[in-house]
């Protein structure tokens, strides 16, 4: 279903433009709506039936005739989706036309037009009461039939509107997300070709994503700065240029030279960044503690708690100087080609499309029982963070680098801010990936290992030795193997996926088993297919979670701290909800208790504290996949 995604306008146009004819011979006329409209005519009067048939053919419709109501009903049931509209006579010997009308409305929800020689007002009224779209008086003229397509279109539009309203954000979100995805992808992925190009315009328009998201009307709107990867990179490079200690918002703003960005935006972002760095350094110090984390995956059931622990432990280690952290962070951000560069990650993730898990190397680490293991909880957290990063100004990146650093270097100094460490991380990740390959789907494996290498240092991934990160990176099933969390995440994910099947997210495509990585950023990764979230989702769907994880890691990068994650998570939840229109098993997610704006400074890892504002949903396409993943992740929480 292509996702669904993009309903609303697009759906209308799709329906308009593509009526699949049941008869091959009529395919030619399908291009011009309403030609090719599939009509089922039911009338016991053979004369009328023949005339109607001819008239409808002249309107270039695809006609099927039936002289018995029972046969018609059968036809409709067995060939669901083969008809667009039903024309039925009122007086029929075997079944009352109104009864048929009711049945069709109940079972197939197709527009039904009644016909009759009876022009009495009461008869017409009865038709209306029974739900007829229209009531034509015999003899029917060709002109009247030419117009019946309007009922099909009208119904579709109403359906979409209903979805929008019920899903609360629904289309809006979808569209936004789709567009966001594209934008993000394109912004991140200069190299991505093809699909992104068309989206360029949109993305270009939103260059730095300093965007006043109006987004979802249903959500409280408030202009916020979207700290895209690019924007963040600029920020970080400005900070590094000035020196982390000397960086003041005013100067940073000047250096960044981004129109529309205010000092306040920068100030709050800087605050978050500082916290993030602190966390990173803390994690680094905890490098040695990593081994302690190697404990069984199962212990990570409580992600949040573990995550907290991890980060705190890491933070306590204090091995990594803030400057180095910042530098590393910058490096990660700024080197699309670098191993660690988060920016790289993004494009890689995007490009990889379903390829190898750009997952955080940490994941691998986790598998190995390295500190990374702990990452898991973090990862989940990261995701939201990353998402936030992308979409929101909330302190996303906090968790990200720190996590990566922490996890990457099993027991080693996280100072691996330098390339060497990165390499190590890469190796670790790679190893993990390899190990996990068995778990992974074949298709992803190679891709994963590839990507994981390059990605390595994704800050998000690195975040903490949490297993989650490792898992993500490992892509494929790393998650599940190591962590109960993962598993549960998987489960949730599947839950989500199944639910999301209808949503544009399509994340659901991933088989339940695959979801493990939850990192399903799939939508994110879609190589070069930034296409609307829906598509991205579908892409990832194939690749199993690992890829998704990648995505998540990508976005994750942005996420700074767990708290940041939380908001994302919430977002995801929201988005997810919106998407599928149904509530995923909100239970687990609820635990996260993310409520509130994502802008909260992630002072704690406590998941429960944050709730991503629905706004986030709008931001991002990434959300889509993310949310899917997150939900899974959150499930554990």
């Amino acid at each position, binding site marked *: 279903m292509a996702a669904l995604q993009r309903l609303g306008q697009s759906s209308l146009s799709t329906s308009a433009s593509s009526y699949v004819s049941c008869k091959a011979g009529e395919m030619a006329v399908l291009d011009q709506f309403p030609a090719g409209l599939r009509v089922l005519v039911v009338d*016991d*009067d*053979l*004369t*009328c039936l*023949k*005339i109607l048939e*001819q*008239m409808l*053919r*002249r309107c270039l419709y695809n006609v099927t005739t039936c002289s018995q109501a029972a046969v018609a009903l059968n036809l409709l049931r067995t060939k669901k989706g083969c008809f667009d509209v039903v024309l039925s*006579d009122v*007086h029929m*010997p075997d079944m009352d036309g109104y009864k048929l009308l009711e049945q069709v409305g109940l079972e197939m929800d197709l527009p039904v037009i009644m016909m*009759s*020689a*009876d022009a009495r007002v009461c008869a017409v009224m009865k038709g209306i009461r029974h739900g007829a779209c229209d009531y034509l008086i*015999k*003899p*029917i*003229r*060709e002109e009247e039939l030419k117009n019946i397509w309007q009922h099909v279109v009208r119904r579709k539009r109403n359906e979409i509107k209903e979805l929008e309203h019920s899903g609360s954000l629904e289309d809006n979100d979808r569209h936004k997300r789709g567009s966001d995805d594209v934008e993000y992808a394109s912004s991140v992925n200069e190299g991505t070709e093809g699909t992104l190009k068309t989206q360029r315009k949109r993305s270009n328009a939103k260059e730095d994503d300093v965007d006043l998201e109006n987004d979802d009307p249903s959500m409280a709107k408030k202009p916020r700065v979207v700290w895209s990867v690019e924007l963040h990179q600029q920020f970080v490079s400005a900070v590094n240029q000035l020196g982390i200690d000397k960086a003041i918002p005013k100067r940073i703003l000047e250096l960044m030279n981004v129109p529309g960005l205010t000092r306040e935006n920068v100030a709050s972002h800087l605050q978050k960044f500082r916290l993030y760095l602190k966390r990173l350094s803390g994690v680094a110090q905890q490098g040695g503690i990593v081994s302690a984390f190697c404990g069984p995956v199962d212990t990570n059931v409580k992600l949040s708690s573990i995550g907290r622990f991890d980060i705190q432990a890491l933070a306590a280690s204090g091995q990594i100087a803030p400057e180095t952290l910042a530098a590393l962070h910058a490096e990660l951000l700024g080197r699309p080609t670098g191993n660690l560069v988060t920016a790289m990650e993004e494009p890689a993730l995007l490009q990889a499309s379903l390829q190898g898990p750009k997952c955080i190397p940490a994941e691998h680490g986790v598998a190995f029982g390295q500190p990374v293991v702990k990452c898991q909880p973090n990862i989940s957290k990261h995701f939201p963070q990353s998402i936030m990063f992308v979409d929101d100004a909330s302190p996303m990146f906090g968790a990200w680098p720190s996590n990566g650093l922490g996890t990457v270097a099993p027991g080693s100094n996280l100072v691996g801010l330098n390339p060497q460490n990165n390499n190590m991380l890469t190796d670790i990740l790679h190893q993990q990936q390899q190990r996990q390959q068995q778990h992974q789907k074949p298709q992803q494996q190679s891709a994963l290992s590839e990507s994981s290498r390059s990605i390595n240092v994704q800050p998000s991934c690195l975040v903490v030795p949490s297993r989650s990160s490792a898992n993500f990176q490992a892509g494929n099933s790393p998650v599940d193997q190591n962590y109960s969390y993962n598993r549960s995440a998987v489960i949730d994910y599947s839950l989500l996926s199944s639910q999301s099947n209808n949503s544009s997210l399509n994340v659901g495509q991933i088989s339940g088993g695959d979801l493990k990585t939850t990192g399903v950023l799939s939508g994110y990764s879609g190589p070069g297919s930034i296409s609307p979230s829906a598509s991205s989702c579908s892409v990832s769907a194939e690749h199993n979670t690992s890829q998704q994880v990648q995505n998540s890691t990508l976005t994750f990068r942005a996420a700074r701290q767990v708290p940041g994650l939380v908001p994302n998570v919430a977002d995801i939840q929201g988005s997810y909800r919106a998407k599928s229109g149904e509530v995923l098993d909100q239970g687990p997610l609820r635990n996260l208790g993310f409520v509130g704006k994502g802008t909260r400074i992630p002072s704690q890892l406590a998941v429960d504290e944050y709730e991503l504002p629905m706004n986030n949903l709008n931001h991002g396409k990434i959300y889509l996949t993310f949310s899917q993943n997150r939900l899974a992740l959150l499930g554990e929480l």
Partner: protein
Amino acid sequence: MEVGQMQRSLVDYTKSLFLEGVLDGQFLQLQQLQDETNPNFVAEVISLFFEDSQRLLNDLTRALDQPNVDFKIVDAHVHQLKGSSSSIGAQRVKNSCIPFRNFCEAQNIEGCVRCLQQVKQEYFLAKNKLETLFRLEQQIVAAGGSIPTMELSF
């Protein structure tokens, strides 16, 4: 008779049918529906109409002959006859069905019987005229001519 003459005859004859009210604009619609993909459309439809109507009239006769007339059934038949006759443009047949339905509603057997007579009369008239029309058309076609398209200009 040469083709041109036959064609003129056909046109005149058709016009007379309209003027008499035997046929109405719906018949023209039928004729317009006829095209290369469906060259005998009108003839086929009219044939169907004849068959249907014959059946209906027989059913009506039988229904009204019953000791206990079921007016619902009678009404249903009349309704159908009305529908099909209007579809092909047999105006007078259609018009004769209207009082018929009223009598059915009133459950007036005699009224119904009278109406049935009227309907039958109109039906056979229409049938005759249409058959003549087709015969003329076939003659033209057999002579190598084409059927002139009718234009109603009252």
